[in-house]
């Protein structure tokens, strides 16, 4: 009996010794030095893993930052962390950070229940992707919001909420990190990441309807009718396909008030910093 215990101890101990020996040499042979810079950078990142930067997650972005040379680094930007985080990352790397103006997601539609009343009852799956395929939606506007909130579901920062009275998604400017998830989620491409002006104001055309004025107005009172009043005021604004687009180069602080007042359907939206 005693012999058996000793034999077991010897065999198992021997196996353990050999295995430890093998493991030691294998780990030495295949040693990978940890990327300390990447680890440092990762510690500074928001760790939201949203993919807004275009990489699979924060650690992927960190290793990309660590490997990048000066030119490559200028193209890397974490929209969630913004300039604050990027300057810290740049300090670790010893480069200067890419400078971007603070930005926020905006919805290019104002087709609320009152502005674009429902003409049909939608009774199928509560998903914008599916509704977009079935028909133009409740309001009848082929380019307007479908009111089913695919964008709200994808927002990881709680910046989008669904307003039950207007049936529209609302962007909380304080929480929005401009990661771009909503831009990808909307089947009609109604979201855009827009830069804020120096004073933190926003100026954009809240409509994507390309129908002729009369047809657009029939469905929605806030539709852009392509009247060209805005483009007469500022020549940078282009009106194509009955739809006006305000480029980012138009300074919101300077032009906002004037353009918003000139728009007869109030499709041009000017929001100062105080507005949420």
């Amino acid at each position, binding site marked *: 009996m005693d012999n058996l215990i000793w034999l077991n101890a010897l065999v198992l101990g021997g196996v353990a010794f050999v295995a430890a020996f093998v493991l030691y040499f294998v780990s030495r042979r295949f040693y990978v030095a940890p990327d300390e810079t990447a680890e440092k950078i990762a510690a500074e990142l928001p760790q939201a893993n949203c993919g807004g930067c275009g990489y699979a997650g924060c650690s992927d972005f960190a290793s990309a930052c660590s490997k990048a040379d000066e030119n490559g680094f200028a193209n890397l930007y974490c929209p969630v962390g913004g300039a604050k985080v990027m300057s810290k990352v740049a300090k670790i790397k010893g480069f200067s950070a890419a400078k971007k103006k603070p930005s926020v997601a905006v919805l290019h539609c104002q087709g609320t229940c009152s502005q674009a009343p429902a*003409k*049909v009852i939608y*009774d*199928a*799956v509560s998903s914008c*992707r*599916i509704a977009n*395929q*079935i*028909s*133009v*939606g409740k309001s*009848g506007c*082929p380019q307007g919001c479908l009111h089913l909130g695919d964008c709200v579901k994808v927002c990881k920062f709680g910046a989008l909420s669904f307003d039950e009275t207007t049936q529209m998604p609302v962007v909380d400017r304080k929480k929005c990190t401009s990661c771009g998830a909503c831009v990808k989620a909307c089947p009609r491409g109604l979201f855009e990441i827009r830069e804020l002006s120096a004073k933190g104001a926003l100026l954009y055309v809240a409509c994507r309807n390309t*129908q002729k004025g009369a047809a657009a107005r029939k469905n929605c009172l806030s539709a852009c009718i392509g009247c060209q009043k805005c483009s007469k005021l500022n020549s940078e604004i282009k009106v194509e396909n009955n739809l006006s687009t305000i480029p980012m180069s138009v300074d919101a602080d300077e032009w906002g008030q004037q353009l918003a007042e000139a728009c007869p359907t109030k499709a041009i939206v000017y929001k100062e910093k105080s507005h949420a």
Partner: protein
Amino acid sequence: MPKTYTFPMGGIHVNKYKNTSDISIEFAGLPEFVTIPVKQHIGAPSKIIVNKGDKVKVGTLLADFDGVVSSDVHSSVSGEIVKMEALPNANGYEETMITIKVEGDEWEPSIDRSPDVVKEINFTPEEIVQKIRESGIVGMGGAGFPTPIKTSIPEGKKAEILIINGIECEPFLTADDRLMQEYAERIIMGARVLNRALGIQNAVIAIDENKQKAIDELQRLSKLYIGVNVRVCKTKYPQGGEKQLIKAITGKEIPSGKLPIDVGCVVQNVGTTFAVYEAVLKNKPLFERIITVSGNACAHPANYRVRVGTPVSFLIEKTKTSMDDVEKVILGGPMMGTTITNINAPTTKLTSGVLLFKGAEFNKHHQTNCIRCGKCAVACPIGLRPYAIKDAFLHNGGAAELKELHALDCIECGCCAYSCPAHLPLLDYCKLSKQELRKK
């Protein structure tokens, strides 16, 4: 009892509601305006060859085919072209349409309007295909695939059998049923024209069991024509699907991603066959078709001969139905058709029915979670797993996974959604998955 044919896998039994089966076809009349979409088929939109203000007659060519997979579009009325612009279609999305103000009913002189049945075919196969192309014929079962492509056999392949699809397995619809009852001889002649074009001698007309009058009529006439046979199929949905029908009649299965011609079969709908007869032997382009107007909200269900481009609302008025009673309008059959949001949209070459519903018959059931019962997989006539497609689509939309599940082989028959005890919209997910895969 003669032998009945059917497909072995999946399928469901739905209530038939064929209450318009004994109502004869009547002309719906001419509306004030018709709007004719330039794209009523799969493929490239046709090229408009007329101008605003032009006077057209019934049967005048409006738009020429553009590219291989495309089709001609003809005027369905006589009058003046008043508009050529994008107008909302049945789903509300804009599409290029030609609006014609109707003035009188003057036909192109080349069209043979006599009621006699022409029994002589003096054309070569090439001439027949050319005539079918010039008449703008597309598959009228619903897919809208241009018929000339189906009738010209690609090199290296050989047609062995022509199957005329007289199976109307969708509930409510009786357009094809009435066509077979009233124009049986013309359909047989149409089949012979197609036979000539394909260079084969035999045609099989497949009809499902519940159309006894059509079966009797065609069986009586088929004895007079050598090579034309009638086969009775089981009443089962989707018996009228191309793949299911070929499996039932010939026992051959079409491999994934292949066409019927790869197994030597050509399938044509009876509506298409009738149109081929009229196009080749009567010189009449495709500008009208039979449409069933039915449903529980319809005051006077009927089968109408409708000019292409007639607004859906005109047909609803014709049945003396008030729109206040109607809660849901479906174009096509209830299984595969689509609910429409714009009743001023025109009917097209592909509209087989206008169904009007109210009350309990269209109520959507409350959706619950998938219980993994597998009923959808049992019902699927292709042998797919709709629940797995739904999961793959919802969780990551992974193209590789969807491809592995053969989502592209879905025929969109809707058996899965019909049989789901949790009332999940499985068909929607399958359709979206297909779209997703085609994008890549």
